[in-house]
């Protein structure tokens, strides 16, 4: 009696398994892409929508429907008392100057290293120059605090003893410049390594042809090499720009946005509104504007660049 039932269940099991396997194989691309889409929706649409909601209500409540509509009150507060405009200006200053410095220095370093004849020396420089990226922004803030400290710092000491100048107090007199230079130290490797890869991909025949023309070095770069690696340059600049808008750790570790609000990036302003001033509405209002701002700029750059010649 028991034998037939056993085989019966076995067959249904096998059938069920086969059906699952078919379902898996028939809809394979959907299974494979769905988790990514779910996570992406969770981390793109959801935070933006929630920030927007938070910025428009009086106070966050457990029951979402019970919250009171506040209009644009928080946006007004952000501008009048929240220092939003000031922090946007500071962020743009940091992003533009650091991006410029990192791109220019990174490009020259990449061009110089590409030109080094000995391949052993070349890989030595390549490995050495990426090292600063190993330093977490918060550790970089540590290094900054140690080396720039006006009492125990070695850099003010060297300036004071070896030059006739008196060292400025970096963190209180030149906080913004210090932040920009530290970020440049930290992330120039990023530009360097991508530019280096781009420059190494320039075919020798192209360089040779322009050399035969007798064009001087700089003109070879401007007319032949840079146009050739333009897509790579644009992508590097785009990704670095996006990441620069995320800057937080180095500034928070170094100055916490101070002295006063001298280095108060938007990200630090939002953090302080939320966790120090206890004003989630104002924090969310600034966050919403910042989201729109960053995405708009990035999309303008993408539209201009178009990724032409990058993907196809």
């Amino acid at each position, binding site marked *: 009696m028991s034998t037939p039932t056993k085989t019966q269940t076995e067959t249904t099991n096998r059938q069920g398994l086969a059906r699952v396997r078919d379902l898996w*194989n028939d809809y394979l691309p959907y299974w494979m892409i769905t988790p990514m889409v779910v996570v992406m929706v969770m981390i793109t649409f959801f935070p933006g929508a929630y920030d927007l909601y938070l910025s428009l209500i009086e106070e966050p409540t457990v029951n979402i429907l019970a919250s009171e509509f506040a209009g644009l009150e928080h946006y007004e507060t952000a501008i009048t008392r929240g220092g939003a405009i000031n922090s946007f200006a500071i962020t743009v200053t940091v992003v533009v100057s650091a991006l410029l410095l990192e791109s220019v220095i990174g490009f020259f370093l990449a061009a*110089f290293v590409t030109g080094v004849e000995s391949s052993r020396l070349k890989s030595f420089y390549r490995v050495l120059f990426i090292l600063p990226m190993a330093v977490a922004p918060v550790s970089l803030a540590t290094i900054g605090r140690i080396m720039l400290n006006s009492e125990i710092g070695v850099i003010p000491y060297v300036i004071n003893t070896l030059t006739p100048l008196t060292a400025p107090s970096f963190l209180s007199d030149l906080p913004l410049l210090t932040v920009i230079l530290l970020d440049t130290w930290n992330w120039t490797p990023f530009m360097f390594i991508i530019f280096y890869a781009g420059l190494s991909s320039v075919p020798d025949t192209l360089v040779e042809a322009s050399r035969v023309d007798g064009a001087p070095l700089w003109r070879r770069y401007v007319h032949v090499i840079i146009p050739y690696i333009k897509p790579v340059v644009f992508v590097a600049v785009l990704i670095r720009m996006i990441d620069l808008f995320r800057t937080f750790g180095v500034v928070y570790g170094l100055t916490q946005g101070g002295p006063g609000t001298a280095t108060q990036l938007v990200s630090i302003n939002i953090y302080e509104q939320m966790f120090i001033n206890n004003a989630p509405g104002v924090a969310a209002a600034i966050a919403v504007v910042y*989201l729109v701002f960053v995405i708009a700029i*990035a999309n303008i750059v993408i539209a201009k660049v178009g990724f032409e010649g990058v993907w196809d």
Partner: protein
Amino acid sequence: MATADTEPGSSQRFEKGTRETLVTVARHAVLLTWSFLVLFPLYWLASMSLKPSGQANSLPPDWIFLPTVYNYLQLVQSSDFVTAFANSLLMVGASVVLVLLIGVPAAYVLSRYDIPKERDVLVWILSSRMLPPIAVVLPFFIIFQEFNLFDSKIGMVLMYVSINLSLVVWVMKAFFDGIPETLEEAARVDGATRFQGFLKIILPAAKPGIFSVAIISFIFAWIELLFGLVLTSFNAVPVTLFVYSFIGSRSIEWSMLAAASTAMIIPVAIFLIAVNKYLAAGLSFGVVIKE
């Protein structure tokens, strides 16, 4: 200059020779200067971590000193540091595994199937990186408290996944694009299913890409401070937050701080050097793929 170069002549050649030497010298001068700028802060931090605390801050600096591992011993003995370091290893490691499990199959689909508006989809994926973490973390701070995920390792793992997913998808799509489809078609002729082809043919071929994207994801999560600052308080504190809290304390013990920072840098530096061949591909989101 251009005309001078085209004119033949021995004096010309000599002049050109000196100019080339000058260029070479200038190039090495610049490269050595930058090498110094890169190495000096790292050297300074490391040497400070090896000095006894009394000697650490002395100016003029003691160039010659007896290195001591005392600071590191103290660091290892403070349970806070060990916990934070282990937390970071665990959370970041788990996030890398998870982000690969989610991102790699999705990248394969984006590479092999006809996706409507593929370009817009890719830009949308990239846009997750455009969202400043502070704007993302604000809603999650409130949600996490509702769902008891605040100060939990799982919550932190999810946040780390969120910063690296776009990177994994982009880089792996570019890698898969570079692997000829004939490879898996041959396997399918032999009776393998599409999924088997993906597992047994494509994944091994894409190993260098997976390897490099894993390490770069590890690094981006490892250096993250904000998530720890906002979403943890005690149980899931990452090592970045430990270092930060050191800075925040009233009287900073410099040599200990230096030791903690150095300990944080060393594993990442080793990873970076190991992966330096594929670094460009990873950092440019797969656009620059080095053969």
